[in-house]
């Protein structure tokens, strides 16, 4: 039983087709046995997936993106959790300003952040370094973690902490044994979302990498703006599968809709 009429279902089908089309095409093209782009492929071959192995540039860029995502998401989580605890549960002067500051990377156009980071990092000599990339990514992804952790913190029943305190737990024990486990889904969900955001980031990163720290999206972008061949399709397919895998992890741990809608509505 669905309450949608036939017209609504047709609309829905077209919408889903529209959303899926570019991804299906990328995966289809990557399976071609030919040396050029064709869709649907004339046969099924993993030739272009093997070709990835002959392109250490891409593999190296993939590892850089992976390390960068883990480092930036972890740094950002470590900073965002205490901030969310303060902002989510206390009223204090400057609170709104702090929140606006931490959410500002969503408002400022990324291209502006990109050149600002480039200018800053090149002045202090960190341009192109892994450290510089990590710090910049941590800034960009903080709003994503902060939003999810804030949702968990404000949804928290504070009497539970009071109960622990009345039973003799110190502030730190309350945090470690009660608060942190209770906000853990938000923290983990935020970390994964931040990791994916960092892993996919192009607009900022394209300004601040150097050849030895090039990330996978930047390498792909540079390649695509020169030429599109089945190789980028097969690499993109790997990226799609990796992301879909992470989506399933999120779905199991936290609920994808909750993660993306921001914890307010299910």
């Amino acid at each position, binding site marked *: 039983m669905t309450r949608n009429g036939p017209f609504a279902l047709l609309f829905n089908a077209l919408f889903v087709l529209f959303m899926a089309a570019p991804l299906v095409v990328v995966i289809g093209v990557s399976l071609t046995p030919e040396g050029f782009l064709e869709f649907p492929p004339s046969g099924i071959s993993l030739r272009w997936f093997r070709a990835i192995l002959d392109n250490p540039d891409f593999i190296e860029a993939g590892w850089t993106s992976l390390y960068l995502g883990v480092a930036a998401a972890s740094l950002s989580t470590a900073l965002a959790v205490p901030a969310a605890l303060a902002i989510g549960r206390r009223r204090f002067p400057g609170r709104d300003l702090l929140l606006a500051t931490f959410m500002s990377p969503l408002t400022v156009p990324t291209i502006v952040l990109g050149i600002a980071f480039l200018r800053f990092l090149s002045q202090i000599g960190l341009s192109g370094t892994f450290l510089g990339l990590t710090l910049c990514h941590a800034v960009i992804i903080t709003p994503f973690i902060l939003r999810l952790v804030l949702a968990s913190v404000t949804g928290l*029943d504070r*009497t*539970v902490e*009071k*109960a*622990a*305190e*009345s*039973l*003799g*737990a*110190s502030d730190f*024990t309350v945090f470690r*044994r*009660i608060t942190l*486990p*209770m906000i*853990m889904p938000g923290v983990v969900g935020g970390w994964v979302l931040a990791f994916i955001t960092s892993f996919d980031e192009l607009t900022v990163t394209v300004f601040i990498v150097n050849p030895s720290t090039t990330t996978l999206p930047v390498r792909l972008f540079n390649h695509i703006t020169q030429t599109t061949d089945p190789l980028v399709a097969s690499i993109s397919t790997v990226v799609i599968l990796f992301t879909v895998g992470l989506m399933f992890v999120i779905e199991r741990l936290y609920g994808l809709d909750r993660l993306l809608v921001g914890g307010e509505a299910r």
Partner: protein
Amino acid sequence: MAFLELKGLTKRFGEIAAVENFDLSVERGEFVSLLGPSGCGKTTTLQMIAGFETPSAGSITLEGRDLLAIKARSRGIGIVFQSYALFPHMTVAQNVEFGLEMRKIAAPERRQRVAEALALVHLEALADRYPRAMSGGQRQRVALARALVIRPEILLLDEPLSNLDAKLREEMQLELRGIQQRMGVTTILVTHDQTEAMALSDRVAVMHRGRLVQVARPLEAYEHPRSDFVSSFLGKTNRLEGKVVERAGERAGDLCRVAVGETVFAAPAPPPEIGKDARPRVIVSVRPEKVEFRAAGAGLVDGTVAARIFLGDHWLYQIETPLGVLLVTRQNVGPAEVETGGSVGLAWDAAQVRLLPFEETA
């Protein structure tokens, strides 16, 4: 010196005094209820005893020790919260064990005491469940076990039964009272439910607008309320505005005469709170169960039965009289005594009338 002493306790939030000049002594092993409507300051008082709110003035002492100098986590007070506040990520046993861990009690003794506490609330079988998978009544028991297992000097109960349905609430009231008496733990209950307060406590402390208005045994508070507010808040009553028209002696047993509109009837001598005026305005209170039916013309006042409601174990009547609409309750011991629309006379024993200081509104 009393076991727990609250003296001059005051809490202001900005200009507003949530609790003002609150004095209360609680004896060891006693069960006292803080009773009042929402916003009367009872929860704030509880929070101050627990250590989650800092008083603006006043003192709290436990066996002469200053409790305010001690942090909430070191006060050794067991609390059952309205929401139960169970740790959702821990099993029932882990919830109960938590307070013992904080006290660095060795594991074998912890296990022993957890088992005892769970047996006390009949939850031995559910030790490994998570709170999520339990009913409201079961969660309530876990919360109680968690608070009692630390052998608290004081047990604070914050509206513990308000989330349960009516039938379960009554069962839990009996059980709670039983456990409290067996353990002999000094208990303070915060509630807005007067039947619950009267059912459970040795004494009720009625609060109104941040102030303590009367502390007494439940029967005493019900039968001899000291103010219009207490009289109306504890149970149902017929509240009439009247005037003393004839003062006789002031000794116990002496009667006076009061007039409500045109009707004049006898009442006990006015209590000292009413003052020495010759003809003071008073609030006259007569409980519905104290009113009796007579034949029309044979009572103190005549009326017409406007409505009759069947409530199982008793009947509730609304009688239109020259005094206003009066409520009468009768035990259900057979068929109803009067029919809707019929005329009746109403009467009451002069000793059951209560005269209270006049206030504009209750």
